[in-house]
């Protein structure tokens, strides 16, 4: 990127601006300088021409009398005197044949010049020589032998009556022009002055360009280049995902406005990005929650299905063995009635009867578990069901040394339940808790409504021996028991009942500290409310 910047410097905005301004300045200054110089030069030339005219008039005037008298010596002296004046190169008088009659330069006298010479050209160039010339045409500028420029002005000496009437003169009357007065003036000083002016103007132009470029460069650097570079860097950072970048903005020009817009845009982007991330995170969380929920449901379905299969099989077996067990039980009891207590068979018969009764308990548990009929659900609150269960259990000896703490939320929403079945679930869990605490400890029952899941939740915690982690997945399985006289069906039945109510039952346990069973039941929907409430009301009262 940096090397690209260096190699492409001539494409930069700053260069283009500075170059354009320099070109415009150069053009303007150059053009105005040229016009000024030309005007000054023309002025100077005009001034010189006026001076030449005055000088030639002066020469003519001062030599006229001497010429009329043909006092050549006097004419010569006047011409030499005038020619010695500063700013005058030469003063010469030519006769018609081109011979120099008088000259401020003595060497020139007697010399004859060609008619094509620069002094004669103006009149003699046409086929017929001119007799009258305007002032501009009487002047000429030519290069002196020494190298500098010279301005010459000719002034024809016309044949006047005074010239051909006196007897001393030989000028015929027909002759129009008697000769030419030629005054030359060096332009060296003027040219030097013009050159100086030009040099000054060029220096001024260059200095102007340099100054303008510098000022413009500095202004551009400060107002455009730096902010733009900062903006570019910031843009690259934003493109890379860094939304914390902020441009320093001061002033109120277009670049500052752009900077403020950029800052606002970055701020908006930052907010949008944060919201997007938050949404992403929330979505991720929701997906995780839903996945966990699905997995839990899947596990429960699998569990329920497994239990249903086992239950059906067990129920089939139970029904089949009820009749033979009836025979064993009644026959055993009849035999026991006939057998005196001191008989050696008495104990055996007791064993037969007791074990048959145990088998009966197991079978009834299986039948409960495999119950095929739909529960009779009524709309009611869960709290009276808890109260009824506790009222029944509290009177039992096994609960006498157990402290029962209740934290039941008031006015919980109704649930749609079979009161007897839910009471059976609570009884199962509470009896298990009592046994786990060896009939001494604290039992905590909490019930509340959970709006996030729209469920009523009942937690039953004991301070008993707890359940080892490896046993936790199996406790709801049918026939799984650690109790000597247990059927292993209590929790399996409870699980089935809660599942039938569309709820869930979960367990958390820590060996040595206790166990918590959490039962969640869905709130009765409004649709179920109206008819169920009437029935429930009748039923519950």
């Amino acid at each position, binding site marked *: 990127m940096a090397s690209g910047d260096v190699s492409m410097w001539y494409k930069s905005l700053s260069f283009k601006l500075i170059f354009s301004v320099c070109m415009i300045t150069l053009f303007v200054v150059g053009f105005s300088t040229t016009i000024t110089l030309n005007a000054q030069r023309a002025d100077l030339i005009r001034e010189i021409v006026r001076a030449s005219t005055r000088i030639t008039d002066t020469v003519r005037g001062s030599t006229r009398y001497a010429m009329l008298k043909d006092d050549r010596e006097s004419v010569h002296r006047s011409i030499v005197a005038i020619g010695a004046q500063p700013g005058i190169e030469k003063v010469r008088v030519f006769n018609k044949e081109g011979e120099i009659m008088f000259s401020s330069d003595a060497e020139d006298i007697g010399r004859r010049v060609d008619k094509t010479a620069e002094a004669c050209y103006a009149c003699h160039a046409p086929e017929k020589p001119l007799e009258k010339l305007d002032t501009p045409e009487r002047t000429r500028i030519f290069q002196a032998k020494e190298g500098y420029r010279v301005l010459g002005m000719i002034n024809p000496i016309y044949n006047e009556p005074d010239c051909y009437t006196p007897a001393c003169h030989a000028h015929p009357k027909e002759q129009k022009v008697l000769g030419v007065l030629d005054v030359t003036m060096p332009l060296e000083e003027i040219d030097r002055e013009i050159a100086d002016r030009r040099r000054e103007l060029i220096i001024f132009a260059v200095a102007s360009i340099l100054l303008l470029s510098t000022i413009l460069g500095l202004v551009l650097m400060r107002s455009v280049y730096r902010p733009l570079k900062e903006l570019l860097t910031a843009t690259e950072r934003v493109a890379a995902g860094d939304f914390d970048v902020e441009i320093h903005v001061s002033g109120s020009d277009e670049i500052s406005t752009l900077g403020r817009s950029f800052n606002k845009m970055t701020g908006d982007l930052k907010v949008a990005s944060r919201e997007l991330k938050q949404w992403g995170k929330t979505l991720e969380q929701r997906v995780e929650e839903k996945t966990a929920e699905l997995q839990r449901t899947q596990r429960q379905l699998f569990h329920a299905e497994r239990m249903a299969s086992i239950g059906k099989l067990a129920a089939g077996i139970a029904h089949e063995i009820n*009749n033979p067990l009836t025979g064993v*039980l*009644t026959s055993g009891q009849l035999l026991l009635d006939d057998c005196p207590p001191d008989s050696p068979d008495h104990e055996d018969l007791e064993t037969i009867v007791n074990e048959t009764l145990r088998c009966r308990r197991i079978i009834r548990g299986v039948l409960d578990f495999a119950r*095929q*009929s739909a529960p009779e659900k009524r709309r009611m609150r869960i709290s009276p069901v808890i109260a009824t269960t506790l009222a029944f259990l509290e009177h039992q000896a096994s609960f006498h040394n157990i402290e029962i703490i209740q934290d039941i939320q008031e006015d919980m929403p109704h649930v749609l339940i079979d009161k007897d079945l839910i009471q059976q679930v609570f009884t199962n869990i509470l009896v298990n808790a009592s046994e786990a605490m060896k009939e001494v400890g604290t039992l905590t029952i909490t019930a509340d409504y959970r709006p996030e899941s729209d469920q009523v939740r009942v937690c039953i915690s004991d301070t008993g021996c707890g359940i080892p982690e490896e046993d936790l997945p199996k406790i709801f399985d049918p026939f799984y028991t650690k109790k000597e006289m247990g059927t292993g069906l209590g929790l399996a039945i409870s699980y089935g009942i809660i599942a039938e109510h569309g709820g869930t039952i979960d367990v958390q346990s820590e060996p040595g500290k206790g166990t918590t069973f959490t039962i969640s039941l869905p709130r009765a929907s409004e649709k179920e409310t109206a008819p169920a409430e009437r029935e429930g009301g009748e039923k519950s009262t």
Partner: protein
Amino acid sequence: MKRRNVLVVDDEPVSRRSCEKVLIRHGYDVITVNSGQQALDRLAEEGFDLIITDLKMAGLGGMQLIERIKGICPRTPIVVISGYITRDIIAEVLGQGVKTFVPKPFTTDELLSAVGKALGATRPDGSDEAS
């Protein structure tokens, strides 16, 4: 006092025999039959103080039998014995006016208690009001 006569209807011999033995031991006259149809035939011949019936039987089932008995001798109490007592079945039996159930397997006391309770609803001499 006249001995109460009881009709036991059950297609399971072991169960039938158990009822018979217990009731005879405790002073009842017992007639046993192994199907609903036999029970109806027997009822056509004589009256009984109490009818004990199973529900799940081949041929004429317990529920149909109860319905038929109600037509013949509506005052005769009925005790249902079954190894398959569910809520639905209880509801159905209740609809037929039967109030006493003894789930199998039962103890002698449970059977005798149910029989005593059912018979208590009849007059002490055991005669049927309708007859």
